[in-house]
């Protein structure tokens, strides 16, 4: 599911052409919008965002969080140092985890990131026959039977203070899936918590929110601040974005 930038609906993959599917979030248009020649528009202001009495409170809370981040200023020397790698080693084979999402599996039982090699490794019984056991290869807990059970486990991990679980729950609030209501402010709050615990990807998402104006007003300065913090913490995607933004003024666009 991806959002069309013209009609702002979440649509499945069939309703986009291949070319549009690969585009950025701010440029993507669905087939219907292209046929009707609808141009890309900024997202409509949510009524809740305008009318809610708590809005001012939430905004001041987010501002306070931003100032906390902004106080930890990054100088150039710190920014251009080789950061620690984004993920740790796989706890089973002790090799570095790859950056691409395909190579990583998150286990909701023990909260570990496991590489795809160890996740799909065949299991043998005493006679040497291959068995199909649906168990976590690190802690041997059976895999969750349904997505609800996985969310239950995630909540437990969150209470224990697992940064990855907190970040995932924030993403659920952003998309409004798995039984969570859509609430951008709640998502931003959770991502802030995950970022404080040292999860770089959370700051990247906050940066995107400030860039596109999702739940907050568009503020490129703040977005850049968050991207830099994420880059220093080791996020490769924000490092790549920072490099692109340096070139944008020279070449315009790509």
């Amino acid at each position, binding site marked *: 599911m991806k959002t069309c930038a013209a009609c702002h609906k979440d649509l499945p993959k069939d309703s986009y052409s291949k070319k549009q599917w690969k585009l950025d979030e701010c440029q993507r248009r669905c087939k219907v919008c292209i046929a009707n020649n609808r141009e890309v528009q900024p997202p409509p202001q949510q009524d809740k965002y305008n009318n809610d009495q708590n809005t001012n409170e939430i905004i001041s809370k987010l501002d306070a969080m931003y100032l906390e981040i902004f106080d930890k200023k990054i100088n150039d020397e710190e920014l251009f140092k080789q950061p620690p790698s984004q993920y740790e080693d796989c706890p089973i084979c002790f090799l570095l985890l790859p950056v*691409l999402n395909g190579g990583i599996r998150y286990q909701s039982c023990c909260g570990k990131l496991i590489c795809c090699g160890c996740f799909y490794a065949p299991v043998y019984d005493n006679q040497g026959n291959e068995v199909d056991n649906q168990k976590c290869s690190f802690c041997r807990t059976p895999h969750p039977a349904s997505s609800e059970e996985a969310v239950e486990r995630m909540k437990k991990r969150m209470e224990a203070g697992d940064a990855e679980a907190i970040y995932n729950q924030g993403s659920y609030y952003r998309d409004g899936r798995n039984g969570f209501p859509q609430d951008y402010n709640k998502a931003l709050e959770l991502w802030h918590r995950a970022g404080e615990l040292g999860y770089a990807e959370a700051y990247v998402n906050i940066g995107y929110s400030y860039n596109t104006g999702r739940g907050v007003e568009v503020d490129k300065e703040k977005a850049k601040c968050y991207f830099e913090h994420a880059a220093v913490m080791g996020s*490769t995607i924000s*490092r790549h974005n920072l490099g692109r933004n340096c070139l944008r003024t020279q070449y315009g666009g790509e």
Partner: protein
Amino acid sequence: MEENNEGNMDRAMKHYMIAVRSGRQEALADIKKLYTIGQASKDDFMKALQSYQIYLGEIKSNQRDKAAATYEGCRYY
């Protein structure tokens, strides 16, 4: 985002180099593009290729290759 620095190319190259060393393939593609239009030097491109090779050496393993070959959605580099 705007950044009105004079040495933008320099900064971008530094960012790209770090991204490539930590395993971002898109950054390597960008350096290649810059090299083909003559903005990046041959040295830079070579250094980027070498550091990406080092990263690949760190993550590659037989087990992962096997998983990537048999299951969909396991591409890891």
